[in-house]
């Protein structure tokens, strides 16, 4: 009796599992390419915004390498290298601001080899809607205020929100979010500035998965 029931249930459940898995795997096979394409487009869209096409002629998406650098993030982050006519023209890296108002803020920071900031985009965050979410380009122009700025030294105190005596606006009612973003962009910029030469040279492991795109949540 027991044995019978065990066999029957085991086989049936196994059968269901096989069918379900097969279905899922089938769909995956069908959608695989489309998904990859989507992610590529998405990342490219963001990248192209801050590294305009006239600044590079290589395939940014495939220029991606994985960088392990504690100054930027605990995990390895993707870095994109733009070349114009074979010359290094731009560097973009994913930076993480760990001290956002509610959790981490993922940013994309791009600079020219000269050290001038090309642009910054927010990739993902959970800041308070209506306050902290002004770091999104849809909500506010604030994020554009980084473009064209330069970092003089590691202790450049202009790189701070106004409330702390710096040159960047804070949003009304929210200081923590911009403070976190400014801090993260500052350290990312400093790192890229200092290491730009070697970064263009370095052989980095290939990115196997594209980063998440711009998020609206």
């Amino acid at each position: 009796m027991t044995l019978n029931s065990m066999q029957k249930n085991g086989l049936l459940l196994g059968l269901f599992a096989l069918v379900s898995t097969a279905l899922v795997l089938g769909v995956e096979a069908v959608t695989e390419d489309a998904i990859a394409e989507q992610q590529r487009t998405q990342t490219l869209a963001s990248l192209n915004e801050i590294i305009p096409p006239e600044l590079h002629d290589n395939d940014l998406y495939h220029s991606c390498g994985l960088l392990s650098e504690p100054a930027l993030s605990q995990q390895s982050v993707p870095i994109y290298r733009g070349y114009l006519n074979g010359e290094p023209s731009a560097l973009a890296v994913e930076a993480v601001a760990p001290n956002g108002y509610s959790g981490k803020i993922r940013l994309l920071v791009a600079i020219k080899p000269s050290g001038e900031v090309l642009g910054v985009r927010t990739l993902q965050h959970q800041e308070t809607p209506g306050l902290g979410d002004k770091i999104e380009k849809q909500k506010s122009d604030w994020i554009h205020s980084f473009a064209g700025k330069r970092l003089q030294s590691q202790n450049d105190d202009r790189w701070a929100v106004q409330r702390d005596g710096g040159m960047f606006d804070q949003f009304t009612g929210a200081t923590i979010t911009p403070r976190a973003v400014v801090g993260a962009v500052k350290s990312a910029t400093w790192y890229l500035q200092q290491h730009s030469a070697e970064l263009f040279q370095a052989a980095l492991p290939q990115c196997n998965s594209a980063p998440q795109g711009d998020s609206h949540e």
Partner: protein
Amino acid sequence: MSFKVAAAPHGHSQKKTNQVMAWVVFALIPGVLIQSYFFGWGVWFQILIAISVAYLAESICVWARERSARQALRDNTALVTAVLLAISIPPLAPWWIIVIGTLFSIVVVKQVYGGMGQNIFNPAMAGYVLLLISFPVQMTHWLPAAPIAPYDLGVWQTLHTIIFEYTPAGYDVEQLRTTVDGISMATPLDGVKTALDQGQILSEAYQLPMMGALAGIGWQWLNLGFLLGGAILLQQRVIRWHIPVGFLAGLLIPSLLAHVFAPSIMPGPIFHALSGATMLGAFFIATDPVSAATSDRGRLLFGLLIGLLIWVIRTWGGYPDAVAFAVLLANLCVPIIDRYTRPTVYGHHSGAKHDAE
């Protein structure tokens, strides 16, 4: 001849509920006077608006729920809620802030839960949290205290600001709190927190212009005023000592320990005791019996929990002050506290059973 039938007992002592509530409002007077001295006329307008809205909202709710309006309005609980909320918000907050807050306190937090005695959250604090979460800008716009304030607003200017959000001269509140050198003045709690977050040490933070001898200018006296009010309540036996003592112990002991171990970054107990809404919270807010634990032990624990939460949130949290959040969180724990602090009923002590053997 037939006589009146009544339930035992046939006598009665102690203050009635409405008198208890009236005493709470009465004991707030020293604090409110100090607040109006340091922070201007705004507090009186806020109180006025809050009371009117509270009574209006209460009447409508009670009417809609088909209850006796006379009784509900006479118990003075709406009055207490209104006044507590009004003195918690920045005195120059626009009028619709206090209106929304009071409406939420009375309608959602109190009446929707079943009216007086049924609310699980402290209405004033729930209203305050709603406002703080929804309108953080307005809710953090405290002016610097009178001695260091760049502007001195009269009655009319204050009223104008509350109604139109800028003074007759056209300054908005953000401008009012900004000094000539372009630095906007925060509350002491906020200032110290910001300074510490920026890596300064405590002694540097204490150099901030809004810091006074003990805690912040104005704020220290405000807290002492509420402490005085608390003493009146204790003396009148309107409240009992358990919650305030637990509250202050929960806040001051950890802050003392932390200050001893890390004197440069952990503010000490005196700063905590006299900043923000500490004393108001300890004697007037946490002691709201409806949303507090009931047994003596439970109340001590309830107070301790609030104090501890305040310290934790002030030290590591996102908002500078934390009384409202701590009170609401502790409100949530009340059923559990009540359950585990239930006194042993007569005849149920384990000793009693043992003796029976």
